[in-house]
């Protein structure tokens, strides 16, 4: 191997590196884990579609050397559902942020999970709207400081894993960007799984969120994950809290359920047979 070529170079689009993300941002680690998972399971990259919404992590779809969609704000899951139903052979992965998936696109998320559409959702949770200047969002922890909550946040945050589990997702996990091995294993698992799968990744955002919350560098935020993270596989996602003292991570749900596209195609077949029989 030559000294100036990274082993993942062929999974990254030509001329797109270096990416736009800040120093200390965890989005690059999610991209790294995702391409490592693609490499490890030796999946045909022409059969993978990466769909992303608006936000810092939305840029990710432009960096992977797969087919990709960079969609309108909050509608990544809607586009992904369309792509999946049009061509069921595709592996459709939605990689987007917490604001995009749960504030603007909240309804798309819960209903795609309820229908069990066969798409894989990876959500980068950085606790705020990073790209637009650090406004508070649906995942900002209580009492956290952001640009629009200068006296501390008084709204209770969403528990994303509990929401996904309650909406009917067949695979639910949460990791931080420090758990690179477990995150890669999770991504590998969902790429080989059928049904609505959800992975929440807690991401450091030192420039926008961290420095207003006494964690000014990426290393400080990663050290917070290191000391606070507690792995509890197969535990109740309702109790998976995120607080300054404790971040409960792990693989919460891994189940099987008939998918929407499977049921749809089955019904189409039955109806077509009935119509032919009547003629």
């Amino acid at each position, binding site marked *: *191997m030559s*000294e*100036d070529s*990274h*082993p*993942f*170079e062929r999974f*990254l689009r030509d001329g797109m*590196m*270096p*990416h736009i*993300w*800040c*120093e*200390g*941002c*965890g*989005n*690059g*680690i999610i*991209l*790294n*884990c995702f391409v*490592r998972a693609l490499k490890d399971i030796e999946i045909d990259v022409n059969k993978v579609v990466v769909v992303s919404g608006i936000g810092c992590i939305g840029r990710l779809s432009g960096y992977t050397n797969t087919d990709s969609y960079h969609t309108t704000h909050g509608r990544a899951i809607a586009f992904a559902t369309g792509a999946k139903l049009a061509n069921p052979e595709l592996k459709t992965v939605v990689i987007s942020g917490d604001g995009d998936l749960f504030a603007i696109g909240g309804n798309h998320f819960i209903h795609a999970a309820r229908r069990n559409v066969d798409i894989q959702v990876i959500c980068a949770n950085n606790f705020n709207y990073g790209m637009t200047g650090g406004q508070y969002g649906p995942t900002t922890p209580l009492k956290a400081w952001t640009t629009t909550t200068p006296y501390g946040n008084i709204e209770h945050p969403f528990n994303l894993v509990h929401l996904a589990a309650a909406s009917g997702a067949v695979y639910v996990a949460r990791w931080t*960007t*420090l758990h*690179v*091995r477990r995150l*890669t294993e999770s991504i590998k698992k969902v790429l080989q799984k059928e049904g609505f799968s959800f992975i929440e990744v807690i991401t450091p955002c030192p420039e926008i969120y961290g420095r207003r919350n006494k964690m000014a*560098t*990426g*290393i400080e935020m*990663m*050290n917070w994950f290191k000391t606070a993270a507690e792995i509890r596989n197969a535990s109740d996602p309702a109790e998976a809290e995120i607080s300054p003292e404790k971040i409960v991570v792990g693989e919460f749900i891994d189940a099987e359920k008939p998918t929407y596209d499977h049921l749809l195609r089955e019904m189409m077949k039955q109806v077509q047979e009935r119509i032919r029989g009547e003629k």
Partner: protein
Amino acid sequence: MPLRLWRKPLDSEKIKIPEGEVHVLKDRCKGCGFCIEFCPKEVLEQSEEFNIKGVHPPQVKEETVCILCSFCEAVCPDFAIFSVKKDCKGGC
């Protein structure tokens, strides 16, 4: 558990710890320092030189202690560092 009570794995003599070689793509580094902070063997350190972005990229402090865990490669957000198995021409 106290250290003296740790049992030695039965195959510990057969298993050879691999030796790694770390490569840094200096101009891609943004200087977040994750690789230096989280290397379990403390192989890396910050260098004195500046790269094209004006940050100090990591450099290898002690190459002989690298065990090829590739954590630096996995945790790098900028695809700027990777490790490969050491070329064993001399027999290692």
